[in-house]
C-alpha cells in the first residue's frame, strides 16, 4: 500500500470541519479507503499469469496496478471485490476468495 499523506474522514473532529464541509485540498479522493466493504478479494496465481494486463484494463476502479516484476496486483485499499478481473483473465490466474478465508 502506498503512503497516504492527506487526511481522511475519521481523522477529523467536528472542529476540523471546513465551513459547509468544503474540501479545499485537491486530489484527496484517493485518500478515502473505499475497499473496506468488499466481501470477496482477488488472488493472483503468478504461475499462471501471463502479464497480459487485461485485468488492469478492465478494473472499473483502477485498483489494479503493475508491480515492479510486471505482475498485475489488486490494491485492496480500493478493490471492491467485483470479480471482473477474475472473470476476464484468459489464463484463469485470478480467483475470488471470501474475505474471511486466509
Amino acid at each position, binding site marked *: 500500500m502506498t503512503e497516504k499523506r492527506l487526511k481522511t474522514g475519521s481523522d*477529523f473532529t*467536528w472542529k476540523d470541519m*471546513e465551513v*459547509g*464541509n*468544503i*474540501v479545499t485540498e*485537491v486530489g484527496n479522493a484517493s485518500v478515502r479507503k473505499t475497499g473496506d466493504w468488499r466481501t470477496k478479494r482477488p488472488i493472483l496465481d503468478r504461475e499462471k499469469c501471463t502479464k497480459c494486463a487485461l485485468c488492469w484494463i478492465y478494473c472499473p476502479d483502477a485498483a489494479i496496478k503493475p508491480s515492479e516484476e510486471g505482475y498485475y496486483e489488486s490494491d485492496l485499499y480500493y478493490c471492491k471485490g467485483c470479480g471482473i478481473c477474475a472473470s476476464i483473465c484468459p489464463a484463469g490466474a485470478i480467483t475470488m476468495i471470501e474475505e474471511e478465508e486466509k
Partner: protein
Amino acid sequence: MPCRSYNYDRGGRKMSKRVGLEASHAAAEAARMADVDVIAAYPITPQTHIPERLAEMVANGELNAAYIPVESEHSALSACLGAAAVGARTFTATAGQGLELMHEVVYVASSMRYPIVMTICNRALSAPLSVWGDHSDAMAVRDTGWIQVFCQNNQEAFDMTLWAFRVGEDSRVLFPVMVHFDGFHLSHVTEPVILPEQKEVDRFLPRFQYPFALNPDKPMTHGAFGPPDIYAEAKVAQEVAFRKSKGVIIQGFKEFGDIFGRYYHPVEPYKTEGARTLLLTMGSFSETAKIAIDTKKNKGESVGLINLRLWRPFPFEELRQAVKDAETLIVFDRCISFGGPGGPVSSEIRSALYNEKERPRGVSFVGGLGGRDMSVKDFEYVIDRGREIVEKGSEELFETVGIRGKVTGIRG
C-alpha cells in the same frame, strides 16, 4: 418597533423618503438596494409581486442582476445554490406550497452554508387548497438550519430583507436567511415605508466576499459525499456554528439601528413591565394584538405582549428574561402540529421554560388559520380566556379561536 420618522444628515437634510409600498414591493426594493447579483424565483400566490417587481427592475435596467426564470421552486433554490457557490449575492422568494416543493434544497442551502436570502409570504398549506395566510409553511421548515425572522409590518419587510444580507453573508455566519411576512395581510397591503438613501445602504451592507467561491484557478469541492464516519461531525459543526450566529444577528440589529434609526431585537416586549399576563405572537398579528393590549391596559388590566422576531436560532435567554416575572404566558399559534403538543411556537416556548425554577403558567391558542381574520376583540378574548384557563383549567391541550361549533377532543 415601527418608526415613522425621517433620518437626517448632519446638515439637517432628509436622507430617506417615505413611500406607500406593499410588503412584497418593499422586499423587492430591499433586494434592489442590496444590489443582488442573481435572482431565481418562481411565482406563487401571495409572493408573486416580489419576483414580478424584480423582473421588471432587471428588464428596465434599474437593477443589474441575472434574473433566472425557472420551472419550479425546487429549481429556483437550486439555481440560487449555484449562484451562491461562485460568490454571487443571491435572492429568492416563495410561499406555502412553493416552499414545500423547495424543501429538500432548503436543507442543502444551509448545510452548504450559502447565505441566500429568501422572503416568504406566509401561506397556509393544502388541503383544502388555500392561498391565504398562516404560519404552516414557516413551521414546516423550522428545522432546516436557516436563520429565520418574522416581520410585523411592511417597514420591517424592507428592513429585515436588507439586514438578512448583512448577517447571512458575515464570514462568521455564512448561513441562509428566511424573512417571513404574512401573505396578503402584509404582502398585498400598502403601508408607509421609509426607504433609505443608497449610500446609507452601502454603508450598512459591504460587498459580499464569499471565502470559498468556486474558481478554476483554485479548485475545491463543494457538496462532497458524507459517509457515516464524517456525516455526524459535519452536522454537529453546523449546529454549533448556527447557534453561534446569534451574536452576529444581534450585532446586525444594532448596526442597522445605528444607521437607520430603527432598532430590532430577537424578543420584543411591548408594555410588559409589571404585567402579570403576557401574550406572545409572531408576525403581523402582533400589531393587532398590541391594540388589544392597549385596550386592556386602559381598563387597568395587567397585560403585555411579547413579539417573537427571531425564530431560528431560537432566542432562549432573551425569551426567559422577557417572561420571568409573568404569572401567565399565553402563546398564540397560526399553525397546528397535528397530534402534537399544541402549536409549534407554543411547544417551543414551553420547552424553553421547562427547566426554569420560576416560570409562568403556559396557555396555548391556535387561530388565524388559512387567512381567517383575528380582530382586536379576538385577541381580547384570547387574553380573557387564557386567564380563565389558568384559574379553572381546560379539558383541551390547546384552545382555538373563532371555530364554529364547540371544539372538543384535543387532549393529551
